[in-house]
């Protein structure tokens, strides 16, 4: 029941009704535009949504598998459909149109009269007409419901295949891979992504995808889906080659416009499907419009969200009496598939007259770039006309702007795709060269001028710009460009972009690290006196302590260093919520002898410690008071154990699987390598904690791709991955180098780790650091493999010094009475802290909660009323 204002009542008679069939991304965009333009003053907007969920982000669908919820994918602003003049019918679709009566009929029997009708019915996945394509275990990849069904079924499968190696097919393959399946991609054409890339790009893409463990089969026509006795998918048969056993099949062989509704209503339909529309997005019935993937303009279906939004904008304008036109759209795309950059823009295949292509291919780094140049002008210069980028698409935005004519093409455009030779930087073509009219966000029609205006009006972060201009809120592909424009504008306006450590130092961590390293400063007070102000704080003190430790490796409790450490580092243990500490001895590679296990058990029993296995293949002992710590460690050290640095921003563990020593599938001795790596890097202080892992085969049981550095055995050696992590924002590591021998593994990891230690921000994990590193993994390769900065010898020497000077911090404490002195609860008494109280749960101690303490009044001591 809606309440109407009297003004609305007065105009009741004049109100008109617009029906929108379909609430996908494009259908919803149309509603948003109409609402924004005030259409609801005159129009009732009624939309039918076949799915039980209203519009959601289908472009970001795959993130559903990496933890994004259906709610987070929603594109519908809270309360949107509660607005006056808006109605949505969920789980209901328009099934017929009575054009003579001007009415639609829905599946649930609703009849709605319309003054205008917009078809936004989208598309459906094409499933090739082959035998067995409907067996249980066959899926398509289109809706959240599809993804939920895939996830459920995949739980019982080992292997899966995707039919179709296009854009969506590779998305689907990545999803299967992330679900833990051995994944195959079967493509009928002779290369992957045949619509967007050429043979050269396709082969680079293929190698990169194969490196991720996905099997690629191109030039293969699937003829039948094989079933087991129960009728479930068991394999695939091809026109050529052997059968492929798989547990499930996802069809992603292209889309087809959903035009049945229009067909039945007698509207004009294209020869190969699609509702024919003119440049007003009108169908053959002037009261009916069609937008998005169901619409056919000039013989083409536009299967991207950005042209869909453009059509929505045109249709909305026409409905409101405007004159906007749709005359085709730029099908340029840039995307990240399985972490691989792929971009295709303009005349990518150089079909235009007089066009020439320049290609660059680096088979080592696995990068392919093709630049298409238009015909020469009077002066002999050629403008960028299109291109293909695989593996490194950093120049995409620049090239795209040149291609659109928003930015002049430089004299030697080929320099844009060739890597900068050492010594000379990439030609400086900054965002400053972009014209104000240049389109930045094509999803939401935002040009550079709009963004500059937002910055001038005071927006000083990307979030604010997104909110004000809507740029970057569609596919998100332009966010880096938006960021660059913002920085450039701020720089021009004289705004200094600060990245300082804290109020005491006007330097970033990296700058301060360089100062400390170059000036050979060895104490915090020297750094503070020479380069800072005030007394320091809990941010800069541990940060500087970490730098000093990375560079010098003295004992962290010696001299002035002691005052800089966070409590965990100060007491060489992990503080828990009740003020007690936990203790984690090192268990290199997760390998532990029965005697060490017994020793750990005895210590835990003697000191009544709560015992738990950690995720890093170690054993954590909880509930130790400060004064107990040295006594605990005396016993552990006597049993041959050493500090595990769980308290430090330092190397934690190098996890391993059992490898070829025991495992039927292992191809290398992963445990031995993990132990050697852990012993090499133990105690290394870094901007944040560091974790590693080594897997003995591609099954990856040690989860090496979820670590800061991971090594995976291959038949030919070791693949090294860097920049992964679990935790709050899980990220897969990226392949740094493949098929290395042991020595090269150590060499590259030495360099990688020291480079990270030198250049990362405070509390910046390798993943974030790598994401922010200009040029990403490619640049990292150039630094640590090709040594373009000429610092590798230095990095290796730094690491050698670390390895040489390492000592167990706890052994150095228990062997030294003076250091032992620090480990007291009370400086003037040997009493234990009366406020540390334990209760027993599941046979072990745990800290008492407030209400469980014998005398809660104790807690009030010290607190002012």
């Amino acid at each position, binding site marked *: 029941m809606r309440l109407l204002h009297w003004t609305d009542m007065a105009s009741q008679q004049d109100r008109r009704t617009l029906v929108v069939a379909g609430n996908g991304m494009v259908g919803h965009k149309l509603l948003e535009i109409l609402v924004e333009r005030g259409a609801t003053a005159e129009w009732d907007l009624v939309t039918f949504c076949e799915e039980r969920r209203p519009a959601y982000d289908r472009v970001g669908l795959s993130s559903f598998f990496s933890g994004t919820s259906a709610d987070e994918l929603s594109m519908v602003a809270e309360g949107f459909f509660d607005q006056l003049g808006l109605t949505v019918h969920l789980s209901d679709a328009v099934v017929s149109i009575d054009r003579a009566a001007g009415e639609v009929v829905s599946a649930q029997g609703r009849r709605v009269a319309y003054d205008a009708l917009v078809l936004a019915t989208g598309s459906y996945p094409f499933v090739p007409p082959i035998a067995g394509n409907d067996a249980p275990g066959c899926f398509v990849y289109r809706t959240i419901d599809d993804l939920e069904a895939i996830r459920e079924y995949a739980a019982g499968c080992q292997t899966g295949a995707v039919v179709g190696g296009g854009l969506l097919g590779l998305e689907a393959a990545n999803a299967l891979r992330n679900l833990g399946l051995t994944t195959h991609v079967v493509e009928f054409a002779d290369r992957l992504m045949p619509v967007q890339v050429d043979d050269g790009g396709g082969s680079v893409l293929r190698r990169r995808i194969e490196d991720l463990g996905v099997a690629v089969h191109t030039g293969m026509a699937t003829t039948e889906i094989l079933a087991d006795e129960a009728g479930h998918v068991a394999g695939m048969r091809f026109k050529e080659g052997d059968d492929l056993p798989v547990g499930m099949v996802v069809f992603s062989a292209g889309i087809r416009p959903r035009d049945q509704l229009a067909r039945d209503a007698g509207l004009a339909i294209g020869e190969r499907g699609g509702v024919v529309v003119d440049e007003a997005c009108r169908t053959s019935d002037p009261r009916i419009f069609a937008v998005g993937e169901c619409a056919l303009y000039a013989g083409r279906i536009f299967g991207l969200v950005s042209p869909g939004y453009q059509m929505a904008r045109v249709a909305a304008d026409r409905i409101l009496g405007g004159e906007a036109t749709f005359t085709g759209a730029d099908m340029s795309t840039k995307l990240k598939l399985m972490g691989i950059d792929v971009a295709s823009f303009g005349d990518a295949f150089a079909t235009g007259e007089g066009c020439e292509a320049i290609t660059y291919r680096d088979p080592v780094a696995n990068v392919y770039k093709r630049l298409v140049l238009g015909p020469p002008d009077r002066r002999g210069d050629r403008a960028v006309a299109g291109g293909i980028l695989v593996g490194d698409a950093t120049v995409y935005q620049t090239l795209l702007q040149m291609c659109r004519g928003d930015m002049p093409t430089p004299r030697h455009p080929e320099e844009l795709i060739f890597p900068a030779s050492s010594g000379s930087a990439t030609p400086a073509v900054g965002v400053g060269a972009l014209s104000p009219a240049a389109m930045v966000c094509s999803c939401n029609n935002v040009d550079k001028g709009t963004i500059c205006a937002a910055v001038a009006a005071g927006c000083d972060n990307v979030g604010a710009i997104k909110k004000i201009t809507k740029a970057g809120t569609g596919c998100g592909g332009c966010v880096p460009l938006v960021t660059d424009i913002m920085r450039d504008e701020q720089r021009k306006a004289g705004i200094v972009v600060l990245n300082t450590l804290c109020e005491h130092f006007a330097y970033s961590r990296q700058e301060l690290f360089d100062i400390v390293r170059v000036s050979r400063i060895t104490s915090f007070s020297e750094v503070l006196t020479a380069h800072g102000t005030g007394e320091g704080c809990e941010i800069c003190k541990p940060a500087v302590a970490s730098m000093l430790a990375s560079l010098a490796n003295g004992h962290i409790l010696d001299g*002035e260093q002691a005052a800089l*450490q966070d409590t965990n580092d100060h007491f060489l243990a992990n503080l828990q919520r009740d*003020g007690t500490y936990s203790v984690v001895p090192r268990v290199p590679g997760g390998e532990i002898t029965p005697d060490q296990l017994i020793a750990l058990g005895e210590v835990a029993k003697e000191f009544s410690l709560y015992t738990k296995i950690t995720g890093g293949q170690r054993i954590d002992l909880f509930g130790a008071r400060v004064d107990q710590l040295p006594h605990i460690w005396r016993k552990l050290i006597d049993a041959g154990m050493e500090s595990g640095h769980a308290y430090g921003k330092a190397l934690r563990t190098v996890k391993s699987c059992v490898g070829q020593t025991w495992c039927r599938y292992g191809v290398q001795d992963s445990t031995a390598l993990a132990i050697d790596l852990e012993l090499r890097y133990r105690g290394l202080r870094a901007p944040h904690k560091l974790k590693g892992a080594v897997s003995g085969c591609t099954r990856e049981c040690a989860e090496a791709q979820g670590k800061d550095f991971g090594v995976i055995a291959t038949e030919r050696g070791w693949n090294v991955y860097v920049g992964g992590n679990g935790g709050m924002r899980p990220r897969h590591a990226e392949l740094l180098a493949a098929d290395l021998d042991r020595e090269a593994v150590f060499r590259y990891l030495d360099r990688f780790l020291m480079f990270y230690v030198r250049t990362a921000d405070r509390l910046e994990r390798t993943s974030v650091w790598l994401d922010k590193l200009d040029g990403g993994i490619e640049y990292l390769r150039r630094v640590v493999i090709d040594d373009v900065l000429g610092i590798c010898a230095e990095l290796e020497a730094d690491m050698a010094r670390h390895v040489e000077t390492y000592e167990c911090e706890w052994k150095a404490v228990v062997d030294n009475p003076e250091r032992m002195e620090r480990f007291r609860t009370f400086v003037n008494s040997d009493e234990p802290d009366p406020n540390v109280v334990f209760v027993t749960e599941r046979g072990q101690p745990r800290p008492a909660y407030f209400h469980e303490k014998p005398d809660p009044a104790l807690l009030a001591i010290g607190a002012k009323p």
Partner: protein
Amino acid sequence: MLVSKVWVDICPLDKLIPGRGVCALVGGLQVAVFRIAGEEIYAISNFDPFSGAFVLSRGIVGSRAERLKVASPIYKQSFDLVTGVCLDDATRSVRTFEVRVAGGMVQVASP
């Protein structure tokens, strides 16, 4: 104040590391004692009102603007060493204690 103060010996000054704190028991209360430099010493309660644990003596000492403070090692709120007021939430504070150095010995006034 009619009652004269009782100064309780804590420890020799040279046992305190500049820039660090220790905890002392004074009349059954836990007192966090911090040495900034030289004979500049402050004492506040060891109780962290945000976590309910007695840990402030184990925090990192520093400054914010001109004020000396310690950051709780549990959730990192900062407390003014002179007034005991929490700098991140002025509604919370801890009590302060008088402290002095006499004859090379650190002493806290017993409440």
